[in-house]
């Protein structure tokens, strides 16, 4: 169907964009490189190709525009008229005509310049010819750019027109502004038309779809029409007039009998009579809206007369269709879109009338006979004269009777609306609880108590069980009170024993600690074990103290130890030599000297002197492993020397291989004040 192609028209670019598109395409799709050394035919061909290519593109695009925009004569008169009303037929045709002329002009330009190019004799001349050709084509397009803009606007608006099928079942709603046409369409279809208190809220046609007897009906909402002479009507009203004029539809003329639209019934009746010519051959239903404000029966005399006149007109249309003049229930209907009263009835009446009319027309046409010949409705022949009515159970009949008699009960929904609506009111879900006592319905029960789930304890006979438990507990407590705590039988340690025990434990602890310290591991074991008591731990004083702590008189042991000490007796070697020296008078003088030395050496140094040597820095301590102080000092020197190199490199230790800064800037940059920088 042509009308649906309105959405498929390609976008019309503006003048500038158009030029840009075509020229950039030419640049991309044709070869770009050319040198003046090429053969002349090649140069000519190069530039001719560009000119022709550009002309072809322009031609294509402009033809597309001209073809896709609909020809107002070639589409359904409804759309033709609608487009004329909206866009002005002449203007539209002019625009398209301009596009057409532009196309032709561009074709001519291209032809001329190609002819000239055939005789171009240098690169420069060919190039200027091409530039001129392209330039002229672009100027043509620039000149029609207003038309292009206009066509683009039309295209956008056309794409948004409602998709109305002029040939299918349609219901048209018309009337004064603000009578309730859009509310009605909102009620019966899924259309979401704006409903506002001001006139001309609806500014264009709106389509909704509704169903009746398994058939789909289009419902068209029109903008309101005022009672004016035809020539004075504006575009919006002309839309609805066009729709009325061209579409074969059932017409619902809306009447606001309460007058709240701002127009009296007389005015509305006047409008009706002025456009009644448009209602020829269309099933017409007059709908009185807003009866919640003003019931039909309560209308004053003149208004009633006017309404009856309109009804008479409508009845005439039925007669024209061949219906019964008595059959006028479907002509004048009342409804209210506010209270939903009669809305469905109106829709059904309109759909029914339209359907009947269409069926009749189809029946009268010749084509129907082809269909009728093809099917046959079979009706079962009655066997005998016995009547067999449908069987309805008694209960159903009774239920139906009571259902009609019973009044509507109050729903939760109504309750919600009363109490402030959805956001404000929250339904009490506990209303219908079945409890032993109705006061308990709103009780809040704790679920958790002291780290227990209360539900785990709930039990109807919890009390009884608790009692049993307490009895048990009571019995047990009594039983325990009888038993006494006679673990110990009065056995206890005395004070003295306790003191001894603590002393024992303390000593044991110390022993264990010392052992742990002394324990031989690779880390703690020196390579050369110490024989000399550097810390002076094992002294006779200490021994004396400890023995007296044990309760023994230490003097004997101390004296013995002292008499046998190294200082009083000297070393074994020295002793034996000294012994010989005394006896051997036949020894030499040298040996005497040497003996003297030895003797001097073996004599012990006095306490004060020994302390001085030990206290002196770098002093000689016998247990360290050095022969004498000279050796010790040499050793220290060697140690310092070995560490010097590392320290200069700012290393933490022998394992520190980190180079903090491979190329410190101050060493590798800068000019020298004097001298050369050939090496750093």
């Amino acid at each position, binding site marked *: 169907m042509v009308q649906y192609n309105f959405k498929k028209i390609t976008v019309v670019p503006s003048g500038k964009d158009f030029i840009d598109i075509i020229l950039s395409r030419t640049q991309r799709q044709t070869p770009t490189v050319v040198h003046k050394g090429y053969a002349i035919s090649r140069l000519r061909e190069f530039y001719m190709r560009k000119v022709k290519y550009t002309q072809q593109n322009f031609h294509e695009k402009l033809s597309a525009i001209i073809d896709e925009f609909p020809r107002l004569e070639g589409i359904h008169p409804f759309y033709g008229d609608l487009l004329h009303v909206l866009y002005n037929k002449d203007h539209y045709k002019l625009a398209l005509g301009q596009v057409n002329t532009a196309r032709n002009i561009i074709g001519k330009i291209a032809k001329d310049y190609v002819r000239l190019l055939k005789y171009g004799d240098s690169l420069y001349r060919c190039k200027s010819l091409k530039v001129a050709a392209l330039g002229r084509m672009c100027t043509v397009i620039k000149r029609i750019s207003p038309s292009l803009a206009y066509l683009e606007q039309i295209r956008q608006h056309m794409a948004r027109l409602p998709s109305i099928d002029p040939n299918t079942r349609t219901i048209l709603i018309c009337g004064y502004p603000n009578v309730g046409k859009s509310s009605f369409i909102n009620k019966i279809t899924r259309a979401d038309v704006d409903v506002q208190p001001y006139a001309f809220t609806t500014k264009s046609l709106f389509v909704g779809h509704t169903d009746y007897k398994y058939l789909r009906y289009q419902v068209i909402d029109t903008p309101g029409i005022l009672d004016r002479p035809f020539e004075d009507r504006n575009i919006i009203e002309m839309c609805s007039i066009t729709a009325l004029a061209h579409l074969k539809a059932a017409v619902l003329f809306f009447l606001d009998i309460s007058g709240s639209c701002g127009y009296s019934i007389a005015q509305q009746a006047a409008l009706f009579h002025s456009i009644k010519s448009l209602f020829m051959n269309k099933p017409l239903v007059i709908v009185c809206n807003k009866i919640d404000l003003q019931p039909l029966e309560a209308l004053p005399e003149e208004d009633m007369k006017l309404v009856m006149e309109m009804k008479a007109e409508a009845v005439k249309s039925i007669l024209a269709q061949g219906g019964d003049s008595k059959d006028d229930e479907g002509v004048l209907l009342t409804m209210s879109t506010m209270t939903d009263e009669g809305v469905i009835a109106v829709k059904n009446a309109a759909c029914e009338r339209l359907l009947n009319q269409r069926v009749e027309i189809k029946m009268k046409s010749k084509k129907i006979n082809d269909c009728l010949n093809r099917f046959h409705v079979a009706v079962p022949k009655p066997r005998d004269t016995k009547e067999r009515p449908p069987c309805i159970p008694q209960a159903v009949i009774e239920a139906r009777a009571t259902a009609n008699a019973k009044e509507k009960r109050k729903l939760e929904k109504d309750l919600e609306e009363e109490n402030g609506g959805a956001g404000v009111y929250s339904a009490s879900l506990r209303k219908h609880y079945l409890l032993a006592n109705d006061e308990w319905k709103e009780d809040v*029960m704790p*679920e958790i108590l*002291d780290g227990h789930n209360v539900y785990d*304890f709930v039990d109807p006979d919890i009390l009884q069980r608790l009692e049993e438990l307490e009895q048990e*507990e009571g019995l047990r407590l009594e039983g325990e009170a009888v038993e006494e705590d006679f673990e110990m039988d009065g056995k206890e*340690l005395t004070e003295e024993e306790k003191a001894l025990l603590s002393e*024992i434990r303390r000593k044991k602890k110390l022993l264990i600690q010392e052992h742990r310290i002394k324990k031989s591991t690779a880390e703690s074991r020196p390579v050369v074990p110490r024989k000399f008591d550097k810390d002076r731990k094992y002294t006779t004083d200490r021994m004396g103290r400890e023995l007296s702590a044990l309760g023994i008189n230490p003097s004997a042991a101390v*004296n013995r130890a002292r008499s046998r000490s190294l200082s009083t007796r000297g070393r074994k070697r020295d002793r034996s030599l000294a012994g010989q020296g005394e006896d051997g008078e036949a020894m030499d003088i040298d040996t005497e000297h040497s003996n003297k030395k030895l003797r001097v050496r073996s004599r012990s140094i006095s306490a004060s002197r020994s302390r001085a040597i030990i206290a002196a820095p770098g002093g000689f301590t016998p247990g360290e492993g050095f022969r004498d102080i000279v050796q010790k000092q040499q050793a220290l020197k060697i140690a310092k020397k070995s560490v010097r190199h590392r320290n200069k490199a700012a290393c933490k230790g022998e394992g520190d291989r980190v180079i903090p800064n491979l190329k410190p800037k101050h060493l590798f940059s800068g000019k020298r004040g004097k001298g050369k920088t050939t090496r750093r």
Partner: protein
Amino acid sequence: MRLEKCWFCSSTIYPGHGIQFVRNDAKIFRFCRSKCHKNFKMKRNPRKVKWTKAYRLLHGKDMTKDSTFELERKRNRPERYDRNVTEKTLQAIKKIDKIRVAREARHHAMRFKGKKAMEHRAAITELEKSIDLVKAPAPLLQAPQEDTAKLKVKVSQPEAEFMEE
């Protein structure tokens, strides 16, 4: 809302704490904190991990069989609400708690019962064995303070022989 038990350590999980892990066989494991969760992921057996309730119950450190536990049981049949029953239940919970706590304390006391006697015996043996560290043995104490050093007698027999010769 329900207070659940941690699968690993059996402590109560309050709302807003812990993680629940649902395995592919639809078994739900609830954990009270990431410590238990991580232990579970390491595939540790709670019966072997000292600080869990499972270990303690298994090794008899805590009370296992008691009638107070019978009163707290997850019942799957919902009871119709009755205010009086609820009130009584709430009071009963407190009393049951007290009794249970008292019984657990008794259990722990029973466990620690023999400690004093054992300690006493250990102290006595230690005293006997290690008394030497602080007290000298009796004979040494009674010995007088005489100089028991040996007397040295110089024997000059070879000299005499020499001189003789």
